[in-house]
């Protein structure tokens, strides 16, 4: 009796109770489809998070005020005004592994152009910002070091601001009022979209010095605080840069105990790792949910196979009486279970793949179905058939022919 014949005997068994087989297939189908879809959602979230971190900039190091309390519990990070413009200048001057530095001070203000006005984020920074964030002016240009030095009243506006305030016309050369102060528009930034929950296109860039002089109401040079400092390390020296910056700031801030740091230095790699660990947990939860539904499907197979063995006890008895060996009965039922779960797996993969792209298209949620998740699902579905089919099949194969023949 060859494999093909075993297969056809098992197939006959499946066809002999179509509705029940179909329902069992459905159980596995739903399980596999949810595995594929949920893994796709998890993978999509992961890739999205990674690309957002990539979009933050190139070799970015992010320095912000705030303290990490004992035991790593954060306390008001980014609120305490402990970082100053002088810190930024000192980093630029002293840290060998740092290529560029851009301090930032931002605040929301009323912005007016002609009749229209809007509330938007004013981001006062330095010219190095564009290189560090990999975010450039699309029309016109970004401001220069000279304009920094001159505290020039120039601004570069985001794409959203340009559309909202100025509309179709070319904004370059126009003038707008920021908190009543007149600024020349010298450029429009390229469109970037959302990064880390912030609309990168809904902001206006001005020179940091101009910001201090006109908008933020700080006039003593030494007391210029910044919201954060962006730095760019030399390629491949991100942790050296992090080390140098940390030590320099401790020295400048007179900190002996690292637990009392009043600032945080994070590399892009750190941010990436945080994002990955969050999306990793997310994926794991999704995977576990899908796994449970798969387990339920598997138990369904076992249940149906047990019913089937009980129902077909006489058939088993007849087959054994006519010369079927233990292994032949065992294979018949195992193959039946594997066929059911394999069909469920195959259909589930189809449903899962189309379900994922449906979610991508309709719910606008990025999903990525990887070939490995498809292979995994296929293998798992067959394995489920084997695992949950073997017990009922053994039960069938071990039946005593006399007892089996007498059963009704």
């Amino acid at each position, binding site marked *: *009796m060859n494999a093909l*014949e075993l297969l056809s*005997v098992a197939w*006959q068994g499946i066809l*002999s109770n179509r509705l029940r087989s179909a329902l069992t297939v459905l159980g596995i189908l739903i399980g596999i489809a949810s595995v594929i879809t949920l893994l796709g959602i998890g993978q999509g979230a992961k890739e999205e998070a990674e690309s957002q971190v990539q979009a933050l900039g190139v070799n970015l190091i992010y320095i912000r005020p705030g303290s990490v309390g004992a035991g790593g519990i954060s306390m008001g990070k980014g609120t305490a005004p402990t970082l100053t413009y002088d810190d930024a200048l000192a980093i630029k001057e002293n840290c060998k592994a740092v290529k560029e530095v851009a301090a930032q001070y931002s605040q929301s203000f009323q912005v007016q152009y002609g009749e229209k006005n809007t509330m938007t984020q004013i981001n006062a920074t330095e010219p190095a910002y564009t290189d560090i964030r990999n975010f450039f002016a699309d029309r016109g240009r970004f401001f220069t070091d000279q304009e920094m030095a001159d505290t020039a009243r120039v601004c570069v506006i985001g794409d959203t601001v340009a559309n909202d305030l100025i509309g179709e016309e070319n904004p370059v050369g126009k003038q707008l009022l920021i908190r009543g102060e007149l600024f020349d528009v010298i450029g429009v930034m390229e469109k970037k979209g959302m990064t880390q929950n912030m609309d990168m296109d809904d902001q206006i860039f001005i020179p940091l010095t101009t910001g201090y002089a006109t908008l933020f109401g700080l006039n003593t040079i030494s007391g210029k605080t910044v919201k954060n400092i962006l730095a760019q390390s030399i390629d491949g020296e991100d942790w050296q840069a992090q080390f140098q910056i940390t030590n320099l700031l401790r020295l400048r801030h007179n900190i002996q105990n690292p637990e009392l740091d009043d600032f945080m230095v994070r590399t892009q790699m750190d941010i990436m790792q945080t994002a990955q660990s969050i999306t990793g947990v997310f994926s794991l939860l999704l995977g576990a949910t899908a796994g449970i539904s798969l387990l339920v499907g598997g138990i369904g197979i076992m249940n149906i196979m047990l019913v089937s063995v009980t129902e077909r006890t*006489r*058939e088993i*008895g*007849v*087959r*054994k*009486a*006519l*010369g*079927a*060996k*233990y*292994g*032949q009965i065992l294979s018949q039922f195992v193959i039946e279970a594997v066929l059911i779960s394999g069909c469920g797996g195959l259909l589930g993969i189809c449903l899962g793949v189309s379900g994922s792209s449906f979610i991508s298209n309709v719910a606008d949620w990025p999903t990525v179905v990887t070939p490995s998740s498809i292979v995994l699902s296929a293998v798992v579905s067959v394995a489920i058939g084997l695992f949950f089919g073997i017990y009922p099949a053994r039960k069938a194969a071990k039946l005593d*022919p*006399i007892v089996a*023949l007498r059963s009704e």
Partner: protein
Amino acid sequence: MNVIDLDDVWRIYAEGAEPVYALQGVNLTIKPGEYAAIVGTSGSGKSTLMNIIGCLDRPSKGTYLLNGIDIKNRSDDELATIRNKTVGFVFQQFNLLGSMSALKNVMLPLVYAGIPGKERKMRAELALKEVGLENRMHHRPNELSGGQQQRVAIARAIVNRPSILLADEPTGALDSTTAGEIMDLFGRLVVEGMTVIIVTHDPETAGRSNRIIKVRDGKILEDIVMGKVS
């Protein structure tokens, strides 16, 4: 040498509240080519005896030599092979598979004998022709009369050309004409050299054999050897 050699065979069903002594020390030898009829009242142990001879069941006590080989030392799989190749069994309740056509049912022993598909079909058709069912081959058992079902069961038992044919009440559901045809077939098989053992209540059927074994309460009461096969 004897085909069948039972020596003080007991079969005790111990599952119930009280053990049932279905066979109590049966001694029986049957030679190749014999045509024996087992008779006895209902519940006397005829089917139990047939099951043991057919290697479907094992004695609780005593030895059974089939073709000189002790059954006790055979594994379940070896017994399956014996049932497939050496013994043909016609069950009292036919035991056809309802989901398959008559032809498929008859092909079943050949499937487990590992005979290739084409030959299998040919031989099954031939066996069905022998029992006069050549134009009912593609019907399922529930589309056949009781007598026709019985003939399918006989075709299935002889399709593998076993050396021993065991038939439990093979003519019970048949009219006298068809029963006669089946008995003629058995006669031909005996002439071919097959050992045939049947269980019957019908004195006429028993009379066509060449040996009558009377069973009562799990014991052999009488064993009458008669002349040649009719």
